């Protein structure tokens, strides 16, 4: 099938012209506010899944006067179905390091950290080599910026920004209360910019080519390109950089195996879109275009007609039940109730109407959970139960 008009490939992230030294030295000659404005006009939004405007984040942190600050690269990629950050760090690490140093220059930070998940331990040797080379160059151009790697140890929740800070401070990775936000009080209580690996890679592109090149891709509210990690029932699983704003129909045309029943957009914390909704769903950050627009970390898992959606939901709930930090009631108890609940309905121990009670529960979790994990369980739960109700019962 030919690539439809809407599904545009881009090639910014992995194209490596080995010019990072040039980009770095040029960027630090520009003023922080110039760089911030560049980011803001590009309308780059966080690529880890939350979608917070990057320019604004850097601006807020830069505005805090006269205090130690930190730049942290969130490489705790744990969302099921996401594997793009690993690829970025192994193929083009210098882009990320450069972006971190430029961020340091913008906000006034001298120390950068990469929080690398424990499962990616094998990336360490190469990454350490890259950092060594990078720091050597920084010394040459008299840029005071050091980068260290901090290893995680197997906790999905540490991908949440405040949980990450807690982990780096040697404590349990339990998310904090917000406010205060990381731009005011982050790692060690100091203003911190924490960005996803891919976000930083995009800022590199923007600083190299200027905001317009980035802005021209994508659609309104969803500018630029994004890396998508495609897996599941697909003949071509892998990582693809595509412009935002595409419709799911086109996506499935390209990546489906001809029998796609549903696609999970955004991993276990994302939404399951059934085939009948492909045409009206676009991938982006704000829905003004067509039907729903789904923010995402880029994980796309395709399911064909042989798959049981009950099994899928069961797997997600097991995941959340284990990986929740356990602090707050709605998430800790809620995840357990949801998992046991769907099993009970399937076994016939509970009436099918119990599913509605569980849906109501996910609404509560969305409103009251302390962090994104608890708040997003509702996404996959409601999208699966509402679209595949019969598979939950029979």
């Amino acid at each position, binding site marked *: 099938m030919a690539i439809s008009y809407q599904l545009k490939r881009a090639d910014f992230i992995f194209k490596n012209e080995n010019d990072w030294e040039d980009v770095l030295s040029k960027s630090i000659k520009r003023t922080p506010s110039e760089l911030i404005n560049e980011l803001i006009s590009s309308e780059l939004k966080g690529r880890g899944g939350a979608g917070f405007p990057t320019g604004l984040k850097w601006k807020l942190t830069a505005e805090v006067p006269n205090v130690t600050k930190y730049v942290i690269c969130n490489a705790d990629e744990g969302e099921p179905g996401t594997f793009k950050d690993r690829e970025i760090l192994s193929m083009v690490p210098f882009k990320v390091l450069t972006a971190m140093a430029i961020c340091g220059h913008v906000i006034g930070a001298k120390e950068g950290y990469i929080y690398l998940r424990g499962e990616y331990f094998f990336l360490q040797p190469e990454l350490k080599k890259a950092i060594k080379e990078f720091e050597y160059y920084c010394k040459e151009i008299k840029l005071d910026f050091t980068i260290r790697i901090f290893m995680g140890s197997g*906790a999905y*929740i540490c991908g949440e920004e405040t949980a990450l800070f807690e982990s780096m401070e040697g404590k*349990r*990775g339990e998310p904090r*209360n917000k*406010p205060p936000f990381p731009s005011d009080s982050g790692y060690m209580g100091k203003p911190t910019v924490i960005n996803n690996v891919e976000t930083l890679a995009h800022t590199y592109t923007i600083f190299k080519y200027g905001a317009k090149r980035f802005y021209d891709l994508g659609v309104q509210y969803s500018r630029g390109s994004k890396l998508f990690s495609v897996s599941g029932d697909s003949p071509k699983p892998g990582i693809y950089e595509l412009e935002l704003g595409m419709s799911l129909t086109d996506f499935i045309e390209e990546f489906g195996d001809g029998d796609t029943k549903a696609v999970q957009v955004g991993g276990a914390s994302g939404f399951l879109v059934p085939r009948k909704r492909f045409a009206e769903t676009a991938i982006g950050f704000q829905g003004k275009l067509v039907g729903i627009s789904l923010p995402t970390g880029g994980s796309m898992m395709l399911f064909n007609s042989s798959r049981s959606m009950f099994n899928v939901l069961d797997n997600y709930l097991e995941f959340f*039940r*284990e*990986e*929740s*930090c*356990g*602090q*707050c*009631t*709605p998430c*800790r*108890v*809620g*995840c*357990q*109730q949801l998992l*046991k*609940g769907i099993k*009970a309905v399937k076994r016939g121990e*509970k009436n099918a109407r*119990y599913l509605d*009670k569980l849906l*109501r*529960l996910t609404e*509560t979790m*969305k*409103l*009251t*959970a*302390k962090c994104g994990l608890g*708040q997003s369980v509702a996404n996959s739960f409601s999208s699966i139960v509402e679209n595949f109700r019969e598979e939950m019962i029979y």
Partner: protein
Amino acid sequence: MTKKIKISINGIFVEVEEGTTILDAARKAGVIIPTLCYHKDLCIAGNCRVCVVEVAGQKRLAAACATPCEEEMEIYTNSLNVLHSRKQIIELLLSEHNADCTSCFKNGNCELQKLASDYKILKQDFIRLVPFKNYSIDKYSPSIIKDDSKCIRCQRCVRTCAELQGINALTVAYKGDQMKITTFFEKPINDVVCSTCGQCINHCPTGALVEKNYIEKVWDAITDKSKHVIVQTAPAVRIGLGEELGFPVGERVTGKMVAALKRLGFDAVMDTDFTADLTIMEEGTELLQRLKGVLVDHNPEVKLPMATSCSPGWIKYIEHIFPDFLNHLSTCKSPQQMFGALAKTYYAKARNLAPENIVSVSIMPCTAKKFEAARPEMHDSGYRDVDYVLTTRELAIMIKQAGIDFMKLEDAHFDRLMGESTGAAVIFGATGGVMEAALRTVYELVTGREVPFKNLDITPVRGMEGVREATIKIENPLEEWAFLDGIELKCAVAHGLVNAKKVMDSIRTGQSDYHFVEIMACPGGCLGGGGQPIPTSLEIRRKRAEAIYAEDAGMPLRKSHQNPEIIKIYTDFLGQPMSEKSHHLLHTHYTARERF
């Protein structure tokens, strides 16, 4: 000057300081938001999510205890979303909780129960989670029972043990559905550095942490005709007991307490305050002996500062954490244990009773006293000195069980022989009290004059600050104490083990040069002890302290050495302070323990 901002809560406009939490602001507007993990004594957690409220313009509900107010915030505490969410959260908590209320020690005084009752959770559809986990009840400690099946994971106990007491016996372990509150390697609480102070019990909202109760055993003893049961009551009980039985906080119910105990059937009702006076005599003398040992004899074996030893939580703490300082502790037993030792010797002889038929019970504001009574070395009378220790709460339960209308009781008096006490004894219940009582006696012993403070109220050692210092200059002492002339007696008072650590650290580094240090394990001193009525807060502790000092001011005798029964026991039985008999019955030794 903190900026003032205007916000609205349920349509009521309030002006508050910037940064005030929604919870506090609501209270100002007369709106009460229910909470569970929030406690005034502790840092903010924001994890139970019971206090969620709706803020206009925000799509998620905010936790009232953790969210600061901002200018022109519109808050709704009873919107449909809030009510539904709150009910669901309570229902979730109940599904994870062993809600067997009728067999629970905290039945009637449980915060979760109250929430369920207020919100009328009449239909509980969620799957009961408790049968799926294998919970065990830790009953090995003589003081505390930990029942994981009732834990709602609010983490109040962990924060208490960490912030208020600085011991960290409890911690949060694992994550997800396995997350639980436990100890190092999930050992029984008796096998870790727990000081048995019971502050965790005071702060636990449910029945997950309760004291080991000996009510049935005491009933058995009382109803056994062959046993002579005597009871002693601690100073802090008489200002705390009322709270459990209908009186407001800080009501002095001494007379009623004695009357109730008599009605319960105790054969003799006597006063720990008596042995508190005795402790002062012994400890004061010991202090003077130590001062002589250091200042005159320059004996390296004698250590200063001397630290008080009447708080068993403090004793267990120092045994674990500062075992190299054990010889700084006064060798005096606590008033409870002194009483216990005398009950089966001095009292038994005076009343012509066989000591093996005496059952010695004490009413304490403390859970560590249960541990203390069970310490292996506490049998100097030839029998277990104190058989059973009841907390203030347990006594209230017994009074209710016996059908006594506490409020209508006429005041009664303690029995003779070990029931007389002075104002100096009753202030033992407050932090700084032991120090004040000791100074009143020691100063007079040394100089022949009363302490140079108006009305004998040594105010520098009073109050609720963590660490307080006082200096008393000794001038023109009696000839016997000439070596103390010109000496400035430096004293320090600390309450709460976190402050104890501060004092001990400063002693270890040589930063301070105290002579005498009073340390109480519990915030506020005994009046805030692990066995006192729940709930507790700084305000409540202040009120109780006021009551104690009022009781002291109202007593005819204010100095320990004036107590006629004390004079009698020395003449008839002990000889003089620090005599051989005193040493045998009233002094003890300590055991070094592991830090981890």
